[in-house]
C-alpha cells in the first residue's frame, strides 16, 4: 500500500495540477492573442473554453482521494465553519439537544440499572423469587420456608432472608446497623464467594442461636473497619450477644434487594438474638419476606410454580389454623419481586416515554430551525447548485451539520447526565435506611445516548430535504429569496403545535403535582407532624427484654418530659406512614373459627403509650385513652379508629364497650374512638381500619418516642441525646423530625413532582426555542414586506400582527390542546400524588400564564427585530 506517502505527496500533486491548468489557459489565451484577439477577450475566451476550473480541479483531485471519506471530512470542516458563524443558533441547538438527550440518558440509566440490569450474581437467568399472587409481597413463615425448601423438586436449593436492624457494639460507640438474617445456604444458593475469610453455610445451622456469625458487607467493612484484614475472627456484640466476624462479602454484592444494602449478614437461625423474639417455630407468623433459588436445569418457571403451590395447598390442609389460602407465583428477584418492581417499572416506563416525547419535540424544534436556516441560506444553496454542486452533496452537507450538532448535544447531555447519575448513586433519600441506587452509567447508557444523538441528528437534519430539492437556483439568484407568504397549514406548523401541546401537558401535570404535594403536606394525616421529633430506639439492642422493656420505656418518656419546652411525649412501636406497618387480622366477637379467611378486616396495629394521642396530635373522638394501669394484669383494651368502628363493630357511635377478637383468640374491649388517618406509607390510601393497643399489653422493644414541643423541635436534638445517654450509654438512638421521617411516605409523590417539574422546565425550554425559531424565521422571511408596510405607515401593532400573528396563533392552539390533555393526564397522576386534582383554578391560571409568558419570551427578539426594521436601508439593499 502506497497511500501513506501519497497523503504527504498530495499537496505537491494538487499544486502541480493547479499550476498546470493555469498555464494551460495562459497558453490558450496567448494563442488566441496570436490570432488577433485582445488580451481581455483572449483570456475570457480561454477561461470559457476551459470550463469550470474548480470543478475540473476537484474531479482531478478525486483520483488521488478516498472520495467519500475526504468529502465527508470537507463537509465536516465546512459545517464547523458554518456553525461557528452563527454561534447563537449553534448554542441554542446544542443546548436543546443536550437537555433532551441528557434527560433520556438519565432516565434510561435508571431504567437500565433497575429493570434491565439484573442482580449482580452468577447465573441470574435461572434465579427466581417466590411471591404471593395477591399482595405481591412474598412473606412466608420460617417453618413454611423449611417445608417449601425441603419438599420442592424444582429448585436446586431455596434460600431465604429477612431484613432486620440491630445494635452493633464493636467496643466503641454502639450504633444501629441494618442486616440480613439469611438462611445458611444463602451464599451457596447465590454462588457468592467471600472476599475475605468465609461465608456461612447450611452446615453451620444447628438449631436456634447456634451460629453467631457475621459476614460483613464490603462497604461496611471498608467504612467502619478501615479495610482491616485482621477483622476476621473478631468477636463483636450484636444486641449484647457475642457474634464472630467470619468473613467479608465481595465488593459488588449488596444483598438481593437492589435498592437496599445491608451492613452485614447473619444466619437466620440466630434471628432471636437480633429481633428479640423467636419466629423460627411460628408457622402462622409469615415474617420471612423473601425466598429465592435457582430453578433446576430443565424445570420451567410454570412447573416450579405448580410444584410450589401443591406444597402450599398441602401446608394449608395440614395446618389450617395457620394459613389462609394464597397462591404462590415466581418473580424476578432484585426489586423484591413485583413489590417494588411493578410500581417502579410503571413509573420508569412512564418517565422514559415522557423523555422520549421531549426528545421528539426537540427534534421537531430543531428541524424547524434547520428548515429556517436552510431557507435563509437558499441563496447560498442556489449559488452552489448553479456552480455545479449536486443536490446530494448539499443535502449531505446539511445532514453533516445536523449530525455534528446532535453529537455535540449528545456529548454535552451525556456529560451532564453522568454527573447527575454519580450523584444519584450516592444519594441517600431516607436517612434511616442504607440505600443503594446503583445507577452509574455503563456501556448501554453510552450506546443509547450515541444512538439517540445520531437518530435525532438524522431526524431533524432530514426535515429541510424537500426544501433543498425544490430550490430552483436561477429563480433565487435572480430574485433573492422571496419567501412565499403561505396561508396553508404546513407540516412545520403541526410540529410546532404538537410540541407546544406536549409542553403544555408537562406544565399542567407538573403544576398539578406541585399543588397536590403542597396540599398533601398540610392535609390531615390523622396526626400532626409539625413540631414533633421522633426518637427511634430498640431496647433489644441494649439487651433489654421482658419486663425490663416497659420500665425502661417509662423512664425514657419521663426523661423526655423533663426537657424544658417539651409539651408531651408519647411512644409508638411504629408511627403512622412509617415504612414498616403492622397489619393484623381481627375478628368479630361472635366468630369462633379464627382462620384468616374469616377475619372481619385487616387492621393496622399500633402499640402506644397512654400519652401518644396527645403527643401525636391524634384526636380522640369518644371514650378514653389508655393509662399506665392498662397493663398485662388488666383486661385487654383498644382504641380503634372510625373506619374500624364502622366496619367491624357496625357503628361508630356505640362501639365503645364492645369487643372484637385477635387471631390468637384474645378478646379486646374497645374503650375509645380515634379519628381516621393515613397509616401505610402511602398518602393516597383509602381509609383503613386501625387499632391502638396499650404498649403494656403488647410489649415492643423497637419504639419511637414522639416528642412534641412548642418551639422548633430541632433545638431539642442535643438534649434528647444527652438524656438518653444518661439513661443508658449503650443504647443507640436515631433522632429525626416527624417530617423527615415522612419522607418515605412522600417519596413517590416527591419524585413524581420533581421529575415532572424537570420535564416541564425542559418542555418550556423546547417550546421557547421552537416558537423563537418560527417567529425569527417568519420575521426574516418577510423583512422586506414589513419594511414596505412600515414605509407605507403601518402601526407597530399591525407590524407585530403581520410578523408574529401566526406563531402566536399556533401557540394558542397548542396550549389549549395541551391544557386539555394535561387535565386528562392528571387523573393518572392522582394515583401517585395525593390530592392531585386538575379542578384547581390556580393550576388553570398558572398554566395559561406560563404559556403566555413563554410566548412573550420566545417572540421578544423577533418582535424587536420586526419593529426596528428600517425601510430605507432595507429597500436600498435590494
Amino acid at each position, binding site marked *: 500500500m502506497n497511500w501513506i506517502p501519497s497523503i504527504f505527496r498530495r499537496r505537491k500533486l494538487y499544486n*502541480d*495540477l493547479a*499550476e*498546470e*491548468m493555469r*498555464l*494551460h489557459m495562459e*497558453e*490558450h489565451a496567448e494563442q488566441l492573442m496570436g490570432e488577433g484577439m485582445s488580451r481581455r477577450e483572449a483570456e475570457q475566451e480561454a477561461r470559457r*473554453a*476551459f*470550463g*469550470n476550473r474548480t*470543478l*475540473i*480541479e476537484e*474531479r*482531478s*483531485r*478525486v*483520483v*488521488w482521494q478516498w472520495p467519500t471519506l475526504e468529502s465527508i471530512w470537507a463537509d465536516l470542516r465546512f459545517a464547523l465553519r458554518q456553525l461557528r458563524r452563527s454561534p447563537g443558533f449553534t448554542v441554542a441547538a446544542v443546548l436543546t439537544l443536550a437537555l433532551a438527550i441528557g434527560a433520556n440518558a438519565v432516565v434510561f440509566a435508571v431504567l437500565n440499572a433497575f429493570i434491565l440490569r439484573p442482580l449482580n450474581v452468577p447465573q441470574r437467568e435461572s434465579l427466581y423469587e417466590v411471591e404471593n399472587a395477591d399482595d405481591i409481597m412474598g412473606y412466608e413463615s420460617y417453618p413454611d420456608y423449611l417445608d417449601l425448601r425441603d419438599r420442592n423438586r424444582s429448585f436446586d436449593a431455596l434460600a431465604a432472608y429477612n431484613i432486620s436492624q440491630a445494635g452493633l457494639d464493636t467496643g466503641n460507640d454502639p450504633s444501629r446497623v441494618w442486616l440480613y438474617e439469611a438462611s445458611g445456604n444463602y451464599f451457596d444458593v447465590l454462588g457468592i464467594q467471600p472476599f475475605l475469610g468465609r461465608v456461612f453455610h447450611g452446615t453451620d445451622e444447628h438449631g436456634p442461636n447456634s451460629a453467631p456469625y457475621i459476614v460483613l458487607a464490603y462497604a461496611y467493612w471498608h467504612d467502619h473497619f478501615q479495610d482491616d484484614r485482621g477483622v476476621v475472627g473478631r468477636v463483636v456484640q450484636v444486641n449484647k450477644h457475642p457474634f464472630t466476624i467470619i468473613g467479608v462479602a465481595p465488593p459488588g454484592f449488596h444483598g438481593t434487594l437492589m435498592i437496599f444494602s445491608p451492613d452485614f449478614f447473619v444466619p437466620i437461625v440466630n434471628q432471636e438474638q437480633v429481633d428479640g423474639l423467636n419466629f423460627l417455630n411460628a408457622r402462622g407468623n409469615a415474617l420471612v419476606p423473601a425466598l429465592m433459588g435457582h430453578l433446576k436445569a430443565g424445570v420451567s418457571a410454570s412447573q416450579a410454580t405448580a410444584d410450589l403451590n401443591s406444597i402450599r395447598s398441602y401446608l394449608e390442609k395440614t395446618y389450617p389454623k395457620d394459613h389462609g389460602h394464597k397462591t404462590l407465583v415466581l418473580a424476578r428477584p432484585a426489586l423484591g419481586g413485583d413489590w417494588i418492581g411493578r410500581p417502579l417499572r410503571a413509573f420508569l416506563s412512564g418517565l422514559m416515554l415522557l423523555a422520549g416525547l421531549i426528545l421528539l419535540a426537540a427534534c421537531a424544534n430543531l428541524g424547524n430551525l434547520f428548515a429556517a436556516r436552510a431557507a435563509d441560506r437558499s441563496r447560498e444553496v442556489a449559488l452552489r447548485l448553479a*456552480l*455545479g454542486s*449536486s443536490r446530494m452533496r448539499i443535502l449531505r452537507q446539511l445532514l453533516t451539520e445536523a449530525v455534528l450538532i446532535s453529537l455535540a448535544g449528545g456529548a454535552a447531555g451525556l456529560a451532564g447526565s453522568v454527573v447527575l447519575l454519580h450523584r444519584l448513586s450516592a444519594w441517600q433519600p431516607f436517612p434511616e435506611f442504607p440505600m443503594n441506587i446503583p445507577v452509574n452509567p455503563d456501556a448501554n447508557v453510552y450506546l443509547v445516548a450515541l444512538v439517540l444523538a445520531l437518530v435525532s441528528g438524522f431526524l431533524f437534519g432530514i426535515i429541510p430535504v424537500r426544501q433543498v430539492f425544490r430550490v430552483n437556483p436561477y429563480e433565487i439568484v435572480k430574485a433573492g429569496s422571496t419567501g412565499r407568504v403561505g396561508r396553508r397549514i404546513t407540516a412545520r406548523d403541526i410540529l410546532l403545535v404538537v410540541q407546544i401541546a406536549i409542553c403544555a401537558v408537562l406544565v399542567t401535570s407538573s403544576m398539578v403535582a406541585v399543588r397536590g404535594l403542597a396540599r398533601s403536606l398540610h392535609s390531615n394525616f390523622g396526626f400532626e407532624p409539625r413540631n414533633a421529633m421522633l426518637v427511634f430506639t430498640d431496647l433489644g439492642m441494649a439487651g433489654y427484654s421482658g419486663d425490663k422493656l416497659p420500665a425502661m420505656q417509662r423512664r425514657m418518656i419521663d426523661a423526655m418530659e423533663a426537657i424544658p419546652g417539651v409539651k408531651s411525649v408519647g411512644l409508638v412501636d411504629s408511627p403512622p406512614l412509617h415504612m414498616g406497618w403492622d397489619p393484623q387480622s381481627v375478628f368479630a366477637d361472635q366468630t369462633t373459627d379464627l382462620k384468616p379467611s374469616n377475619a372481619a378486616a385487616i387492621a393496622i396495629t399500633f402499640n402506644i403509650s397512654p400519652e401518644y394521642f396527645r403527643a401525636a396530635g391524634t384526636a380522640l373522638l369518644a371514650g378514653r385513652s389508655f393509662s399506665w394501669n392498662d397493663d398485662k394484669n388488666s383486661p385487654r383494651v383498644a382504641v380503634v379508629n372510625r373506619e374500624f368502628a364502622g366496619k367491624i363493630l357496625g357503628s361508630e357511635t356505640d362501639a365503645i364497650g364492645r369487643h372484637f377478637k385477635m387471631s390468637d383468640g384474645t378478646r379486646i374491649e374497645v374503650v375509645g374512638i380515634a379519628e381516621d388517618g393515613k397509616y401505610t406509607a402511602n398518602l393516597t390510601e383509602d381509609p383503613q381500619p386501625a387499632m391502638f393497643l396499650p404498649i403494656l399489653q403488647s410489649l415492643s422493644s423497637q419504639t419511637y418516642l414522639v416528642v412534641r414541643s412548642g418551639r422548633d423541635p430541632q433545638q431539642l436534638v442535643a438534649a434528647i441525646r444527652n438524656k438518653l445517654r444518661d439513661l443508658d450509654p449503650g443504647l443507640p438512638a436515631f433522632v429525626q423530625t416527624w417530617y423527615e421521617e415522612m419522607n418515605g411516605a412522600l417519596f413517590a409523590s416527591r419524585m413524581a413532582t420533581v421529575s415532572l417539574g424537570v420535564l416541564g422546565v425542559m418542555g418550556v425550554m423546547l417550546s421557547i426555542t421552537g416558537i423563537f425559531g418560527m417567529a425569527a424565521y417568519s420575521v426574516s422571511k418577510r423583512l422586506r414586506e414589513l419594511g414596505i408596510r412600515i414605509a407605507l405607515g403601518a402601526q407597530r401593532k399591525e407590524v407585530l400582527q403581520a410578523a408574529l400573528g401566526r406563531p402566536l396563533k399556533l401557540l394558542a392552539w397548542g396550549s389549549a390542546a395541551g391544557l386539555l390533555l394535561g387535565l386528562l393526564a392528571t387523573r393518572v397522576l392522582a394515583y401517585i400524588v395525593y390530592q392531585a386534582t386538575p379542578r384547581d383554578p390556580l393550576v388553570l391560571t398558572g398554566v395559561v400564564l406560563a404559556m403566555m409568558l413563554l410566548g412573550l419570551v420566545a417572540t421578544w427578539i423577533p418582535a424587536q427585530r420586526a419593529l426596528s426594521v428600517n425601510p430605507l436601508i432595507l429597500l436600498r439593499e435590494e
Partner: protein
Amino acid sequence: MTESNTRDLFPGALEMMILESLRRQPAHGYALVQHIQQRSNNLLQVEEGSLYPALQRLLKAKLVKAEWGMSSTNRRVRTYQITVSGLRHLEQQISSFERMFEGIALVLNPGKSPAS
C-alpha cells in the same frame, strides 16, 4: 453544468488516445488537446474537464510520468511521458479495442468481412 456526457466516447477511449499520443511524442496538457483534435480532423473535441482527471488517473496508475520543463516555444510546461507499463497497457487496450471494433462492425454489416 452537467456531468455525465462530457466523459469520453466509451470508458478508456480518452486514456487510450492520450497514451497513443504520448507514445509518439511526450507532450503537455494543452498540446495533447491540440494534438488529438488535429489528428481526428476536428472530429473529436477533448474537453479539459475530461483531460485533466484522465491524466491524473494515468499518473496514479503509473502509466505516464510527468515532469516540469520548458517547451519548444519556451514556455514552462508539465510534460507527460509514457512509461513502459503504459506502453504495455496501450498495446493491450488497442488489441482489445480492435477486437471490439471488429465485433461491432460484424454486427452492423453482417454481409461484409472486416478484413476485406
